[in-house]
């Protein structure tokens, strides 16, 4: 994963759970609503998706190195020519 999966799991679960609690406290959903337990699971999945996708920040992938012509070393010994008859 390119992002941060542990942060995603923990904060996603908390986000979903607290979202459900907040919706109840603000009178949007009743206490017995299934959203109270569905939202933490959705949040957990959302955190994992964000960690896998990692849409924020600079890419850590380096561009492939540009091929350069081989430099001939100065101290490279060339094979000596053999005896000639």
């Amino acid at each position, binding site marked *: 994963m390119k992002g941060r999966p542990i942060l995603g799991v*923990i*904060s996603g679960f908390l986000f979903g759970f607290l979202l459900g609690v907040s919706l109840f*406290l603000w009178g949007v959903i009743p206490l017995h609503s299934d959203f109270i337990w569905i939202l933490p699971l959705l949040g957990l999945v959302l955190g994992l998706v964000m960690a896998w996708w990692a849409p924020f920040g600079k890419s850590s992938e380096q561009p492939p190195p540009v091929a350069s012509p081989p430099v001939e070393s100065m101290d490279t010994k060339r094979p000596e020519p053999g005896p000639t008859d």
Partner: protein
Amino acid sequence: MQRRVATVLLLGMLTVVLVGVLAIPAAAEITRGACSGSATFPDKAADRVLDAARPKKDVFEGPLSATVGYSGDLGPGAEPSDEEIPFTGGVVIRLPRMSWQIVGWEGATKEVSAGGEYTYDLPDFTPQGTGGMQVTAWHDHGGTLCEAVVTVSISGSPGGVAVGAAAVTVLAGAGTLAAGRRKP
């Protein structure tokens, strides 16, 4: 572009919540038996009587503390008997995927109706103005079962607890978005 899609994902999640909220079905009231019952809140300015036949979708707002007059009977056809009949019952709050019995009673009686006064006083930190809590009252009178469901909430506006919960929710949402930052 990717940030926009990520934001749309979060908004989509919120939309699913709201659509689900609007889709909550309306149903009613006395779910078993032919009994009847009511509770009267004399200190309320309006909507003083909580009747067992009240539709579940109709949320009854009760105060933090009150002295409530209550009455209930087993319904038409039930007559007082010469010998005592055992009974049991309770009040249950419905939670997601489970229930929690907060009050229970049992005994034996010759009567088929009851009434009286009950005083309660909830702590100040009890959340107010919340969504409805579905409360089921059930009573088994010698095998004759009666069950009524009402939806109640504590009157008032959401206080510091709700604001705090919203603030921590935003923080956790920011943490979820931060999980999408690429590792260095």
